[in-house]
């Protein structure tokens, strides 16, 4: 029988698990990485198909993924089914928990927007008094961001904005299309910066752990990867108080196995990480485990038309391209009605218009679609939500998943801060669009439920004090020194940014710290 003790056990193979494996194995440390899902095989698992050949004409089976707005019949099989791993929420507090279980986690499917945090996020309490500061500042992560951007091959433009720190970019100096230039100019007059989007190009359009990080770890010969391994408990040695490994269940057979380890890194994704810590009854001497859940609001925005592009008269110089409005509110001045700020994804398209934008039907709608063809312009919010203590998760032992593990009850809701922020965003970008000469077709002030952005953060936050945080500034558990957490559960506040590059920068930093501590014999 195997009687092994692995050096570092990594739970989860998404961006931060994969990156931890890469950093540690390249330093000569053997790692074993478990993932709860199967190994995906793009050649076998994906096929180009027309919707007309699908059983439900693209709708998918009714009610299959009631909380995954992103799901369609094309993608339905990639998401975790909530009948298999249920969760619940109090009445009136809908939460859309969007999960993927396969090797690579959600990393093959992310939007690839790559924005650094700034000290407006790391030191947010100093700035506006709400919440807590992170135990690190921008300068602590500054050496690590360029490495992440290099791995991801991030394209972007150097803008010199303190709230939108520049980075190690494949420089995007492409000129704006005419419509976008007018929008940029309208923003300048209103004090709203409109910049180039920053996006991970990856390789072949994929910027995932499975193609950018894990292969490097494999190449060292020091990585063991085990799919279909559902960790049901992180175990602790009663004599030392340290973790000594995990108990996991084989996804197929439900066979239970024990794996001993010197160090455990949890990188299962924010809420799965917290769920596992709670099930294991560890890392919560502070009592804050599960609290301060936050993310970003999506969904509010406008749809507009660029008049000169109608009838397919657009083209590269007239319309097209994307842009980003980085947070600009509550930096040096105070905006009434809400704290923090929002960013805006801006897009100008050359293709068909969305039929939903027109209050027409039948031949009249067809005529409108033809007339407006190629003139679409949209803005969409990414707004920081506030991580209140009350936004939290607890274990629900009455409802277990298909492997018998307790599930989560997620209690979180948005408030006036988010409502007022969304209103400001819609009114501001509509005014900019009108000033640019566009016809605003639809304004939508409503935003999606919590969780929709798939940017859940917090619930195992970092901090200097073991009394108010779960991990220290090195992503190391205050309670268990050989336990590390590298995903976004350690975030102290959400920011307006896609969390991925900051998660990855933290994962590199934590992994290098861990390697050094192991070398010194401290862990």
């Amino acid at each position, binding site marked *: 029988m195997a009687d092994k003790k692995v050096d570092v056990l990594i739970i989860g193979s998404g961006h931060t698990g994969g990156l931890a494996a890469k950093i540690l194995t390249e330093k000569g440390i053997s790692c074993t990485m478990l993932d709860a899902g*199967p*190994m995906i095989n793009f050649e*076998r*698992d*994906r*096929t*180009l*198909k*027309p*919707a*007309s*050949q*699908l059983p439900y*004409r*693209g*709708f998918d*089976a*009714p*009610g299959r993924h*009631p909380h995954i*707005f992103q799901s369609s*019949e*094309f*993608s*339905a*099989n*990639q998401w*975790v*089914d909530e009948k*298999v791993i249920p969760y619940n929420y109090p009445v009136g507090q809908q939460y859309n928990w969007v999960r993927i279980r*396969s090797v690579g986690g959600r990393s093959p499917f992310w939007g690839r927007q790559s924005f650094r945090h700034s000290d407006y996020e790391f030191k947010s309490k100093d700035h506006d008094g709400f919440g807590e500061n992170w135990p690190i500042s921008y300068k602590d992560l500054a050496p690590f961001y360029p490495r992440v951007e290099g791995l991801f091959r991030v394209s972007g433009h150097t803008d010199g904005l303190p709230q939108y720190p520049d980075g190690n970019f494949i420089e995007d100096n492409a000129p704006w299309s005419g419509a976008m230039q007018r929008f940029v100019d309208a923003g300048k007059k209103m004090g709203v910066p409109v910049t180039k989007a920053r996006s991970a190009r990856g390789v072949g359009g994929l910027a995932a752990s499975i193609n950018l990080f894990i292969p490097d770890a494999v190449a060292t010969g020091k990585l063991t990867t085990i799919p*279909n391994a*559902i960790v049901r408990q992180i175990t602790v040695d009663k004599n030392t108080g340290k973790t000594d490994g995990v108990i996991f*269940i084989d996804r*197929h057979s*439900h066979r*239970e196995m024990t794996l001993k380890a010197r160090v455990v890194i949890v990188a299962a994704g924010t809420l799965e990480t917290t769920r596992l810590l709670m099930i294991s009854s560890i890392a919560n001497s502070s009592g804050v485990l599960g609290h301060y859940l936050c993310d970003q609001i999506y*969904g509010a*925005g406008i*749809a507009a038309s660029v008049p000169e592009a109608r009838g397919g008269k657009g083209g590269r110089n007239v319309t097209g391209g994307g842009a980003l409005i980085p947070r600009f509110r509550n930096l040096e001045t105070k905006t009434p009605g809400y704290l923090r700020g929002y960013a805006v994804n801006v897009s100008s398209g050359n293709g068909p218009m*969305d*039929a*939903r*934008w*027109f*209050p027409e*039907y*039948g*031949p009249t709608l067809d005529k409108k679609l033809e007339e407006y063809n190629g003139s679409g312009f949209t803005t*969409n919010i990414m707004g920081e939500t506030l991580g209140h203590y009350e936004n939290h998760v607890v274990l629900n032992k009455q409802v*277990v998943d*298909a*492997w*018998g*593990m*307790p599930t989560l009850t997620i209690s979180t809701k948005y408030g006036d801060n988010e409502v007022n922020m969304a209103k400001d965003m819609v009114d501001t970008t509509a005014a900019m669009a009108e000033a640019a000469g566009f016809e605003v077709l*639809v304004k*939508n002030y*409503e935003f*999606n439920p919590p969780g929709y952005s798939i940017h859940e953060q917090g619930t195992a936050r970092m901090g200097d004090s073991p009394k108010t945080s779960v991990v220290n500034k090195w992503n190391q558990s205050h309670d268990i020194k050989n336990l590390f957490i590298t995903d976004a559960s350690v975030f102290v506040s959400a920011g307006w940014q896609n969390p991925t590059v900051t998660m990855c920068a933290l994962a590199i930093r934590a992994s290098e710290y861990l390697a050094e501590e192991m070398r010194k014999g401290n862990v």
Partner: protein
Amino acid sequence: MKRRDFVKGFAVATATATALGQQAPPQAKNPVPATGTVDQGAQAVAPNTASSPAATTRMQQVAEFRTPNIPVTAPDIVATTDVRYFTAARYATLVQLCAIMMPVSSDYPGAIQAGAPEFLDFLLGGSPTDRQAMYNEGLDRLNADTVKKFSVAFAKADAKQADAVIRPYLKGWINDHPPKEKHERFIALVHREIRTATMNSPAWAAAAEASGERTPGVGLYWAPIDPGIETWVSHGTPKASAPVARQAHS
């Protein structure tokens, strides 16, 4: 694959299956790992059984067999969908709404020709109750409004009468946010779904092909992965939440 290749391949597979069924216990001492197919799997559960050179050769032949190219057809091309869910009155309203919202054009079928009403009847029949209620109440409301205004059922209304009861509730919308007002929401969603059921229909795809346009609605479809979540729904025991006492292993 050429037809003669296909016939040859099929004959090999048949012969192999027959022979495997009559397989005598082999004598080899070094089992070869299994490589696929149901027949081989059945043998491989007893590793020694699958380890003879002859059995291994046959298994490898079967493993190398490639799927023949047999063109298949969507059932909608030759069959119709039975209507089972909506009442006759509601279904008549839906049919009329389909005809009005997405009529036939010179190149493409309308919602009726694409079988959208029958498809939506099928879809709604399996939908959550709140979705069913939205449709039922929305269709009833359309009919009631037409009767009230014109003393005629919506199913019998002319285009002008139908427009008078639809247009006040038409609103533009974006993202995942149809209007909140109940009837506006129904009109927005039923319109969206009539269009989707029509434009994603086999009839629409056939029309695109006939007119030389690229196949519409092509996306990257994910198959269930290894082997799919349904297994876990039905796989009840043993549960990890109640682990049995650790047993001694020899």
